[in-house]
């Protein structure tokens, strides 16, 4: 009988290679082209999938173990939050607008990303790449679900959450995020990786999650802090995957550089526009603010993005084309979008409001070169109208950008007094854009972007301008879900419930 033999000691890398990458094989009964039909049409050349560097070498045993621990922690907090009326701990129910927007626009994006990663987790021929993408697919299901579960309790007590699934497909502002994820998923596997794995995860999610979740902590919302940070712990893996993927493409063949650069330009701008909604959440929707959008941009955009592109310069990659225009927009965008949301608040399933004097002081301090000059006067005007009993409402249709789908509310990069509006005629039809960045995305692939579903014209085509019928279709309860926070049911209930908690009435 054999004695116990000495086994070779395997290091982490070698063990991972054997347990994961060695599982695949070159098919011989079928051609690789049949098995991986979508990997060539984008023009990316890969000579050796074996050169792929695995960012985190997680095997399934470790994945289950660590993720289970995260899940146990997360649901313990969410349960306690629901059992103890944790919703009354938030600073003010105004804050919930940010969460409503998040659930309607971002959580469905997490789910879509999961679908997309399942697809590329199958379509890439390299085992290491596939497994990393598959884990991300699984994580994204997690994120969508933990977000829904964390916000479920708010839905029981507050308006605006109840129809998030309907809003995702039908209401107008969600199509900013929806069109972004649809755009990525309808692209090929490599472009998808640049879109979601690199631009969104690496360049932009820090801006989405870190300051926003710190904001949730400042505003007493432990449920959101928990899902945010818990999701973000997976993001560290995802970001690293995105970075490895871009380096891999650039190292495989010099011909890949112009294609990759084009995608970086496109997806930076697409992502930047989606984050416009986040800028508004940060500057306006948090009753107690942690940092301004400008400050967050300095840390996670300028400093972190700068470091990233200095690093990638060795491959010949330059910073995204729209970077300078983005920088010029930073001090304006949150104000421009909030003004837009306020005037169209009849059609949003969350509340907006006129910033208080205190809020305006804070905004003036954080945006010394722009707020007092351009935006305070407009808010003051709106405030006067509201005081006179004739609140400013725009029932006209917002003109939406054919690419990013935000209303055309942004100004020229070099002239904040001039509305930026670009037009392209394609096959006899005129299309509108909010910026040079969006126009270029369209012009590079017009046959794709003419297909975009634009939610505003729908109001006329389907409902002949009947706003009530449209509200019904998007499951928006007029007088509860929409309009000004001031005087809303959310405001009344929150004050009353807090009163119950803090007095003996």
């Amino acid at each position: 009988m054999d004695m116990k033999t000495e086994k070779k000691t395997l290091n982490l890398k070698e063990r991972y290679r054997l347990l994961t990458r060695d599982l695949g094989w070159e098919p011989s009964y079928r051609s690789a082209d049949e098995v991986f039909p979508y990997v060539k049409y984008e023009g990316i050349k890969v000579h050796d999938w074996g050169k792929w560097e695995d960012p985190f070498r997680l095997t399934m045993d470790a994945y289950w173990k660590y993720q289970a621990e995260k899940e146990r922690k997360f649901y313990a907090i969410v349960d306690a939050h629901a059992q103890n009326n944790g919703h009354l701990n938030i600073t003010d129910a105004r804050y919930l607008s940010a969460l409503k927007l998040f659930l309607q626009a971002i959580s469905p994006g997490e789910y879509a990303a999961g679908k997309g990663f399942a697809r590329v987790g199958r379509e890439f021929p390299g085992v290491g790449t596939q497994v990393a993408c598959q884990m991300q697919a699984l994580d994204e299901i997690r994120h969508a679900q933990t977000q829904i579960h964390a916000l479920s309790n708010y839905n029981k007590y507050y308006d605006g959450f109840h129809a998030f699934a309907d809003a995702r497909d039908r209401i107008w502002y969600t199509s900013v995020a929806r069109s972004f994820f649809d755009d990525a998923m309808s692209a090929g596997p490599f472009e998808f990786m640049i879109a979601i794995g690199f631009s969104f995860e690496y360049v932009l999610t820090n801006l989405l999650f870190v300051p926003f979740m710190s904001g949730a902590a400042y505003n007493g919302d432990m449920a959101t802090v928990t899902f945010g940070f818990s999701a973000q712990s997976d993001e560290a893996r995802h970001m690293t995957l995105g970075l490895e993927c871009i380096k891999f493409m650039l190292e495989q063949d010099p011909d890949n550089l112009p294609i990759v650069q084009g995608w970086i330009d496109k997806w930076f701008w697409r992502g930047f526009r989606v984050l416009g909604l986040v800028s508004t959440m940060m500057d306006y929707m948090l009753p107690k603010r942690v940092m301004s959008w400008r400050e967050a941009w300095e840390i996670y955009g300028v400093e972190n993005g700068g470091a990233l592109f200095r690093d990638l310069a060795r491959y010949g990659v330059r910073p995204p084309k729209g970077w300078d225009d983005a920088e010029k927009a930073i001090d304006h965008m949150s104000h421009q979008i909030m003004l837009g949301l306020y005037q169209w608040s009849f059609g949003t399933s969350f509340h907006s409001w006129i910033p208080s004097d205190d809020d305006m002081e804070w905004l003036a301090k954080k945006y010394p070169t722009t707020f007092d000059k351009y935006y305070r006067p407009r808010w003051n005007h709106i405030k006067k109208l509201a005081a006179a009993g004739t609140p400013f409402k725009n029932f006209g249709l917002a003109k939406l950008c054919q690419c990013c789908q935000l209303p055309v509310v942004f100004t020229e990069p070099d002239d904040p007094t001039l509305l930026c509006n670009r037009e392209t005629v394609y096959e006899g039809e005129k299309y509108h854009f909010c910026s040079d960045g969006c126009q270029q995305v369209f012009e590079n692939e017009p046959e794709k972007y003419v297909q975009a579903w634009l939610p505003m014209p729908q109001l006329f085509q389907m409902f002949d301008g009947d706003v009530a019928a449209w509200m019904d279709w998007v499951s928006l309860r007029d007088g509860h879900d929409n309009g000004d926070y001031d005087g809303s049911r959310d405001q009344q209930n929150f004050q009353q419930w807090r009163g119950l908690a803090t007095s003996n009435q």
Partner: protein
Amino acid sequence: MSTVFIALQANEETRPIIEAIEIDNPQAVVNREPAMVKIDAPDRLVIRRETIEEQIGRAFDLQELQINLITLSGNVSEDEDTLSLTWNS
């Protein structure tokens, strides 16, 4: 110079990890924010298993970092003993 960083949830499990990072990276700056600790360092940050083990008095697998990790920035390189973040700048 480029800044690399790692952010961890602020809790009892990460306290000794953060101490270990400070020991191994004297140039690092520790920022304590609500519910989160973000550690910045110029160009390079190294996390060593041994140093963490000295702080906590038990064996530690660097992959345990996953549980409390919030975000990071830099090229990641990981083996049994170290996890490093670097930028070429």
